[in-house]
């Protein structure tokens, strides 16, 4: 291997030191096809949250036999991604959409990474929960899983999700979808238990169908518009009045609704999220469905503009059913992880209601809810993971966690109530915004939206309360004659795991107390979707 690597490094070094020669031969042509001037560091912020985890994945893969190095490498990569994510967020907040034309090719011909307020918000959320998950994973992932690439998959997942939020190219979006799909599949099967495999098959097949539909839709859209650049697509669609994009739109809606786990395309989620290690379920619950919602926002609202409005009522109704079905599913469960999986679905419904309203307020509510859901669902799964250490996997079996670790019990309650939309946690504000937005919408959908949001909130409250009383309050002694007390003493909850969940709980509380932190970027992000003129100018008039 060293033999192979050497020339490669030599090549890279040579290329590095002598690239000045590159500019010489074809100066005029370059001006036609490439971006002028040199690129400062700032635009690199658009790609670093992707490239650094990608490097992390490459390094962990290369050093697969160094088991103890894996976690620190991943931690460093995602940590740096978080840092750059925050810088990106700040930069975009001050100066508006940030672009980087990959390969220096003039937009719209190359791939242009474009991060606006919305993308930056999601990148930051992704990086933060990614880091929290890694902290939790340190003591939760065994050597065998580490050896078979847990950290590699994890880094790729973060890279793929960040890539989805950062790209300004529809085909590139598909590529990042594939990256996180395949890496998530890898995470799902790690461990290879029967139940896990059953979940993985359903997850893999149905998601592959969704991704394929997405790819077909991209192909068709390219056929119609002759471009893949998002800004350009918007410009072309807006210019061609009444473009026949209805079917393409329907395919996009279907693909993303499937990814988002909207009813009746949600089957794969409750079928699979409870099967892998809890930290895997957690990062899925936090991130993956939200990418679907983000893609719906980006493609339907920004790219399709007025043409997309045709689908809003459909999405709204999907949301209504999803929110209620999810809530009902959660209440029906006696296994905490399954319950949490249905709560993810229910939350997706609430977001889709907001999207379906189509108003600025509705969309903003959906975005705020998405950020809340990323934090709260991740936290809920991890808190359940902590609870399981006390033997509290099923709601029927009391584990007396309240007495044995009030912290763990409290953490569960925080996320449960946050999911239910109770103040003072992060879930309250988006639900408030969405109820208000629904009431402002005339027609049956508005009323249905209010009913769905309130009903799902009610069902979630009952679910959380029931689970808390049965699993966390109920003493283990009531379970049966065999005293579990002896085993109870031995339970050790790793500090790192607790720290990760406490961090998330603190964020959920922080966003509950200072909602402006999310509402303002969400509002500006949605404004940028509804009127993407600045986005388009930045991309298409970059030169």
């Amino acid at each position, binding site marked *: 291997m060293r033999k192979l690597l050497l020339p490669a490094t030599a090549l890279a070094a040579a290329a590095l030191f002598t690239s000045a020669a590159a500019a010489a031969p074809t100066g005029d042509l370059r001006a036609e096809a490439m971006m002028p001037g*040199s690129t400062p560091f700032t635009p690199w912020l658009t790609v670093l949250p992707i*490239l650094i985890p990608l490097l992390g994945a490459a390094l962990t893969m*290369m050093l697969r036999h160094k088991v103890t190095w894996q976690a620190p490498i991943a931690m460093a990569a995602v940590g740096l991604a978080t840092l750059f994510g925050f810088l990106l967020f700040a930069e975009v907040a001050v100066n508006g959409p940030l672009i980087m034309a990959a390969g220096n090719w003039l937009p719209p011909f190359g791939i242009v990474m474009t991060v606006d307020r919305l993308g930056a918000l999601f990148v930051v959320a992704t990086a933060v929960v990614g880091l929290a998950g890694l902290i939790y994973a340190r003591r939760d992932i065994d050597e065998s899983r580490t050896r078979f690439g847990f950290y590699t998959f994890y880094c790729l997942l973060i890279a793929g999700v960040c890539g989805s939020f950062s790209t300004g190219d529809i085909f590139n979006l598909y590529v990042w979808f594939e990256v996180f799909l395949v890496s998530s599949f890898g995470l799902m099967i790690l461990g290879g238990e029967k139940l896990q495999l059953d979940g993985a098959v359903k997850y893999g097949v149905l998601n592959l169908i969704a991704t394929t539909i997405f790819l077909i839709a991209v192909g068709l859209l390219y056929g119609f518009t002759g471009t893949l650049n998002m800004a350009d697509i918007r410009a072309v669609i807006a210019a061609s009045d009444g473009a026949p994009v209805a079917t393409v739109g329907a395919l996009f809606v279907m693909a993303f609704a499937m990814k988002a786990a909207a009813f009746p395309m949600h089957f794969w989620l409750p079928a699979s999220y409870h099967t892998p290690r809890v930290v895997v379920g957690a990062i899925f619950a936090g991130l993956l469905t939200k990418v679907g919602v983000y893609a719906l926002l980006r493609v339907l609202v920004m790219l399709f503009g007025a043409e997309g409005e045709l689908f809003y009522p459909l999405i709204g109704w999907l949301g209504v059913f999803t929110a209620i079905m999810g809530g009902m599913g959660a209440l029906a469960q006696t296994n905490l992880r399954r319950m949490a999986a249905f709560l993810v679905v229910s939350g997706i419904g609430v977001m889709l209601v907001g999207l379906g309203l189509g108003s600025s307020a509705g969309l903003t509510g959906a975005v705020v809810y998405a950020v809340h859901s990323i934090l709260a669902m991740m936290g809920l799964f991890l808190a359940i993971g902590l609870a399981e250490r006390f033997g509290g996997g099923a709601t029927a079996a009391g584990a007396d966690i309240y007495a044995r670790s009030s912290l763990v019990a409290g953490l569960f309650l925080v996320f449960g109530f946050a999911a239910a939309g109770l103040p003072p946690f992060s879930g309250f504000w988006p639900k408030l915004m969405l109820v208000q937005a629904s009431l402002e919408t005339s027609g049956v959908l508005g009323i249905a939206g209010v009913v769905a949001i309130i009903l799902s909130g009610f069902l979630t409250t009952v679910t959380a309360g029931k689970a808390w009383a049965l699993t966390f309050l109920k003493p283990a002694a009531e379970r049966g004659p065999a005293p579990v007390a002896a085993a109870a003493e031995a339970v050790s909850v790793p500090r790192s795991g607790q720290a990760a969940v406490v961090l998330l709980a603190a964020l959920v509380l922080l966003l509950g107390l200072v909602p402006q932190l999310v509402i303002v970027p969400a509002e500006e992000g949605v404004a940028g979707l509804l009127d993407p003129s600045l986005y388009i100018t930045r991309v298409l008039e970059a030169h």
Partner: protein
Amino acid sequence: MNSLILRTIAPFLAALMMLFSVFVLLRGHNEPGGGFIGGLIAASALAIYGIGSGVDTVRRAIVVHPNAIAGAGLLMSAVAGLSAMFMGRPVLTGLWWIPVVEGIEIPLSTVLVFDVGVYFVVLGSLASIALTLEEGD
């Protein structure tokens, strides 16, 4: 696999295919070929070698685990993309260096590094699967 013929010619065939894969990789920028197809051929080469001479022999021959090769490939490609940062160019901008050695232009570039990375990823990943499958028999 107990075929004497295969056992005899496998090393030569593999070596030949390996050489061919590098050729396909390098000519890719101008003629049909490239890192992807090159990597496929190289992986096939290792697979054939494995069938002929045993998986252990192959594993010893390539020194490191095929997965590590794939990882290194991804690293190369990513670094090739990042290197433009130091030249004030956007990510993945091709940086060219065309030295003339005894009258022959040798085009070297980060693009080539990138393609070699692709080659290694495909080679490593497929070889890893193929060798594991062969071991399973």
